[in-house]
């Protein structure tokens, strides 16, 4: 469904994404893993049609990503993007005006899960509440692809189950979910595939349950194997 082929993105002399070839299918939840600066965000922005690759291709249903794919891809960036004057309700209305696949009903149910009130002002939300609102509004779309960049960042331990519930409710056979995270434990159980990215390059893509069964390692173990020595070098 979503395919990246020899995808490369340079920013001057920096190679953020370096020849990544992979394919993702609906009915699965993929965890994109790697320390900050591995190229996960850049890859996602290209997949969301917000950035052009330097070389290589990114296709959605065999068509290059662009205006038409954007309508079917719900993307949540790491940056905050609400106007300070908005209430939680306004954020929903703003999304409803912008995206035809936005469901107010789903948004309200997500708010309930996240324990957010419609009358709350976005500027008075704590960083954790603002992070939850971003997820609630993104997951209220009825898209084919959902890409959440670091959905667990800044989220209190107690609220992480709410986020997981919100994400899992959309994990149906016809949808593709991609979560980037450097908090591996948070995505271990909800993702069925792991995509390990290291310095812009794809290291490997693994079926999580198969990895546990045949290699007797957890996703977090594999993460340490791949990135461990790298962090030691940098420290």
């Amino acid at each position, binding site marked *: 469904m979503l395919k990246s082929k020899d995808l490369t993105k340079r920013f001057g002399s920096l190679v953020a994404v370096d020849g990544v070839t992979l394919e993702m299918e609906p009915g699965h939840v993929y965890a994109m893993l790697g320390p900050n600066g591995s190229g996960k965000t850049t890859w996602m922005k290209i997949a969301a049609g917000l950035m052009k690759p330097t070389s290589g291709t990114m296709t959605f249903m065999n068509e290059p990503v662009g205006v038409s794919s954007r309508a079917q891809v719900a993307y949540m960036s790491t940056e905050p993007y609400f106007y300070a004057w908005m209430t939680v309700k306004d954020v929903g209305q703003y999304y409803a005006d912008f995206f035809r696949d936005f469901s107010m009903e789903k948004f309200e149910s997500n708010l309930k*899960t996240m324990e957010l009130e419609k009358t709350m002002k976005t500027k008075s939300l704590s960083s954790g509440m603002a992070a939850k609102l971003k997820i609630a509004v993104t997951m209220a779309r009825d898209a084919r692809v959902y890409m959440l960049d670091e959905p667990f960042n800044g989220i209190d331990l107690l609220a992480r189950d709410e986020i*997981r519930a919100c994400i*899992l409710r959309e994990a149906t056979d016809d949808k593709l979910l991609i979560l980037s995270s450097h908090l591996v434990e948070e995505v271990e*159980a909800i993702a069925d595939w792991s995509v390990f990215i290291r310095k812009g390059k794809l290291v490997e893509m693994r079926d999580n349950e198969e990895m*546990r069964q045949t290699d007797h390692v957890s996703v977090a*173990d594999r993460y340490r194997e791949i990135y461990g020595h790298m962090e030691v070098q940098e420290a």
Partner: protein
Amino acid sequence: MHEGDEALNFDPMIPIWAQVADTIQKQIVSGSIHPGDKLPGGRDLALTYSINPNTAARIYQELERKGICITRRGMGTYVTEDGEKIAQLRREMAENAVRSFLEEMSGLGLDWHDAVKMIEEEEDNLAEK
């Protein structure tokens, strides 16, 4: 039940389907889920345990393969009403528990004879309380 309430502290090195299947089997054997009871749908199971829906589907596939559950098309998944099957499952699970207990004891330098003696002593202790 609140979503995510059952989220286990998974051992991330063991397949998650196996851990949840084990939990459900214990509930069946202990009688907290009864023969013939309807089990939650795959999607609800995924939400209850905060796990991937494909993992949840795998759990029922495995329980069906063992004859513990039956899926009726368009109806859902049910616990078997075959008491024999449940008795057999209880026996298997008990055997596994005994085996791992004896392994643990052997790791402490105690043989099954010592283990039996200690179980009897423990029984007496409990009886006195």
